[in-house]
């Protein structure tokens, strides 16, 4: 490989030898095809004309008045497919097409990445198969049906915790067996190099737009940028442009599930330890002996027992800080956005909204806060209805 994709002590390449030829091929394609004009022109046109970029940066006046800070929402929920996942899926699907692959496979938790892959596969004529934990298929039924409508085969994953981590295992196993004609379209900034860097590359457009948009609206850069973190792709996507702008505070929000003092959470950055899973070194929820534990969150998209290696690195260096919101807190923010602004957010993004509110009502009073509204909540109606209100 050209590099090992390390972020400090995190990241790297920790996969079976049988997968190495595919990672070498992918790294080479990422280094040579992606910077080329043919790729760039085609992706830019797809993002604009097909997916609907740029997405708006919306000054949420009702929330701003209520919370006491200037709140801006980066509207990735308005992207085709209903979440930021489309940025990465289109990028990687186009890359696999140009690499001559016939088939893409993917894991999905909430189903948003699966849907984004299903759309991209249909558009570009790639056979698409998605691995999804049985538990997640149950709580995100509409997305399962959407994928099927788009011509994708959804494979239920019945091993382990039957959620996202097991879906990744199954997708990796499929890739190991079929790497000659198949690209594994990993949906987050995790996994072995080059995935964390490549997914960041395709998601950084969120932050590039947000930075230019807020400059245009307010004449300056924001004081805070807030995003939810499961694997961490929407957060890295919006953080990337601001990492060098040191006056901007970067805040990631992890799922605290039923509380950090219970064993039902997904707060990997807060409570995980150094380990190795899914091809990377990162922070991991694990037993003392190194068995990977199950994460818990009301939102399937945040239900992951590890996290993208760059987040672990940003936490260690202090460039970003990581807070958490419980299931209940995310739900309260979900309802508040519905009623105050007429926007139904994804439960994932609702975690970021809750911490945005807490900041606005505390240290960030009167400041400007950009919150990444990474997806829309239509897929979550079933889950929200179960909780009443």
């Amino acid at each position, binding site marked *: 490989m050209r590099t090992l994709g390390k972020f400090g002590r995190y990241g790297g390449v920790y996969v079976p030898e049988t997968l190495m030829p595919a990672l070498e091929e992918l790294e080479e394609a990422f280094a040579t095809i992606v910077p080329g004009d043919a790729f760039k022109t085609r992706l830019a046109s797809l993002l604009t004309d097909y997916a609907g970029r740029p997405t708006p940066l919306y000054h949420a006046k009702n929330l701003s008045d209520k919370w006491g800070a200037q709140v801006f929402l980066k509207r990735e929920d308005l992207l085709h497919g209903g979440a930021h996942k489309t940025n990465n899926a289109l990028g990687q699907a186009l890359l696999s097409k140009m690499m001559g692959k016939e088939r893409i496979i993917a894991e999905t938790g909430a189903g948003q990445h699966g849907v984004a892959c299903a759309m991209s596969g249909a558009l570009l004529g790639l056979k698409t198969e998605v691995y999804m934990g049985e538990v997640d298929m149950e709580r995100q039924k509409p997305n399962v049906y959407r994928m099927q409508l788009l011509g994708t085969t959804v494979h239920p994953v019945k*091993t382990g915790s039957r959620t996202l981590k097991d879906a990744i295992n199954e997708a990796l196993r499929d890739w190991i067996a079929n790497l000659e004609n198949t690209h594994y379209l990993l949906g987050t900034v995790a996994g072995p190099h080059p995935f964390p860097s490549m997914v960041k590359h395709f998601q950084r457009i969120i932050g590039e737009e947000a930075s230019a948009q807020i400059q245009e609206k307010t004449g300056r850069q924001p004081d805070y940028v807030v995003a939810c973190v499961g694997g961490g792709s929407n957060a890295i996507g919006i953080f990337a442009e601001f990492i060098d702008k040191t006056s901007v505070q970067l805040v990631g929000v992890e799922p605290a599930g039923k509380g950090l003092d219970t064993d039902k959470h997904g707060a990997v950055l807060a409570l995980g330890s150094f380990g190795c899973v899914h091809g990377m070194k990162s922070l991991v929820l694990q037993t003392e*002996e*190194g068995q990977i534990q199950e994460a818990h969150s009301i939102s399937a998209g945040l239900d992951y027992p590890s996290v993208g290696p760059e987040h672990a690195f940003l936490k260690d260096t202090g460039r970003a800080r990581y807070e958490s919101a419980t299931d209940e807190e995310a739900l309260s923010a979900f309802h508040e956005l519905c009623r105050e602004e007429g926007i139904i957010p994804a439960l994932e993004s609702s975690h970021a909204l809750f911490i945005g509110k807490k900041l606005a009502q505390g240290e960030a009073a009167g400041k400007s806060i950009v919150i990444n509204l990474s997806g829309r909540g239509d897929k979550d109606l079933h889950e929200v209805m179960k909780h009443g209100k």
Partner: protein
Amino acid sequence: MESRDRYKARFQSLQEAKQGAFMPFTVLGWPDEETSFRIIKTMIDSGASALELGIAFSDPVADGPIIQAAAHKVIENGFTVKQALELVARVRKYDADVPMGLLVYYNHIMAMGVEKFFEKAGECGVDGVLVADLPAESSDEVLSAGTVNGISTIFIVSPLTREERLAKIVEHASGFIYLVSRLGVTGTDERNADRDSRLTALIASIKKATPLPVLAGFGISTPAHAEKMMASGADGVITGSKIVDLVAKADPAKMESELSSYLKQMVAALNLVKV
């Protein structure tokens, strides 16, 4: 005897007898500690040339459904990594000479600490460690711990490993080369005759690069498969999923005799063919 010598001694005597090596695999602690010991004892008593023993991991990406299920059962039973190593030590007491390799995922090594893991493995009589998710470029992290404790570091070569990778791999490898003889994860599914026909060239190129013996694994479950691998130039075979499957399906009262009769067939197939 320094532990690394066990591989050397065993492979050398097989070579002299013109016999192929048979290396059965099972998951330590599966289906329970006592039965696991009996399975391993049966392997030794039935003529296994060496053993490959797996430590159960929650997320075994290189393994197919049979070994996954076994690993999950071990974890569910609460059988720990520490107990797995103690079981290895018990096997070593039973047989002082059989070479034993561990198949482990890297997170278990990290959790214990690389130095400590290899030290402990050495104390338990382990001869080799194959880290399923540690490719050659990331292997610096374990090589010196292997050397210090006299433990061979086993590496995998696959049908898609290109020549420059092969050179890097053999530079780090000791003990033997684990040839993944077909694409995919561990399992007992059908082999592809067309792909098998290309193994001869692959094994020849490995042999050109290293004097280490080449043992073929993945999808090797019958005496015919073993003969095919030997005819392609391999020095022996590794069989895992088939064994786990056989034990899982066997009548517990007859498990040892059924396992033994299977193992002996494999050993017999390997005894016949080396040219």
